[in-house]
């Protein structure tokens, strides 16, 4: 009897253990793995979709957009990551289909030089014009030009007027 109980105990412990151990080898291991990688994956999807323009609602990234196409593209990104593509490869994949316009930050190339550096160039031009104007004005102000007789008379007349008014 004691042996039988012992046998049953042994059986329960071994088989009882076997179950979870077996599951750990397959099911829960995979679950644990996906738990570990999914936030990572979602983070990559978010990073990538923040760099891509939604072509339906053009001033939004596909991360911000709920347009059907944006959702499709996010799924596509998820799929490409699962296939093991790198971020650059996924961006290339999108550019091949939708062109440079799909990039939220346009690449620096000959056609976009004006876009990237135009504002700075205009600002610089404005500054140069401003400084030249200020320098010229300073030169003119510092030059001591005596008043002509007519000007002196006019100035006195005006000053006299002020004096009278204030009295």
């Amino acid at each position, binding site marked *: 009897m004691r042996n039988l109980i012992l046998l049953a105990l042994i059986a329960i412990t071994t088989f009882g253990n076997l179950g979870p151990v077996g599951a750990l080898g397959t099911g829960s291991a995979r679950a644990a793995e996906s738990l570990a990688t999914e936030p990572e994956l979602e983070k990559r999807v978010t990073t990538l979709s923040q760099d891509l323009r939604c*072509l*339906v609602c*053009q001033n939004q990234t596909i991360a911000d957009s709920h347009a*059907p*196409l944006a959702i*499709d*593209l996010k799924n*596509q990104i998820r799929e490409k990551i699962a296939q093991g593509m790198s971020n650059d490869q996924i961006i290339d994949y999108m*550019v*091949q*289909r*939708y*062109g*440079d*316009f799909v990039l939220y930050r346009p690449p620096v190339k000959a056609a976009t030089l004006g876009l990237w550096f135009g504002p700075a160039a205009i600002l610089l031009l404005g500054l140069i014009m401003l400084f030249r104007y200020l320098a010229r004005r300073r030169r003119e102000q510092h030059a001591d030009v005596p008043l002509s007789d007519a000007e002196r008379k006019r100035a006195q007349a005006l000053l006299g007027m002020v004096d009278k008014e204030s009295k």
Partner: protein
Amino acid sequence: MNRYLPLGIFLVIAAFLGVGLFLDPREVPSPLINKPAPAFSLPQLHQPAQTFSREDMKGKVWLLNVWASWCVACRDEHPVLVEFARTGAVPIVGLNYKDERRDGLRWLSQFGDPYQLSVYDYDGRIGIDYGVYGVPETFLIDKNGIIRYKRIGVVTPEILRDKILPLVRELNGNA
């Protein structure tokens, strides 16, 4: 001279903004022009059991028209295509994009079917390969499977006459 400087700057800005008024921001240049049309093999709309692929049109100049029953602009375009198909100038293949099969079939029986056949892209996967973002879109593909022209938005009789037909004639003549 300095007196006219503000006026000059104003005119330059006005000219730029004026031109901008007449540009359509929805028309994004496609990177696919003069590139091979992306391969596809899709079930047909009418016969789900049969597939149709890009290779089936090899050696022909053809139009690929992306349409859907939910697309409002397609209603404007459809009669133009039906009319154009009657001339038999160039075969048109329809790409029924993210549609319910039943709705797509009803649309064709209701408004007429200008297509040689339509393929059925339920999840829009092939649409993504073709860079589709605004239905309707139309691609002109040459005998070697190279995309020669893309129209985003409604195809009008003017576009058929001035853009598509001359290109079709040229592509049929040269290749």
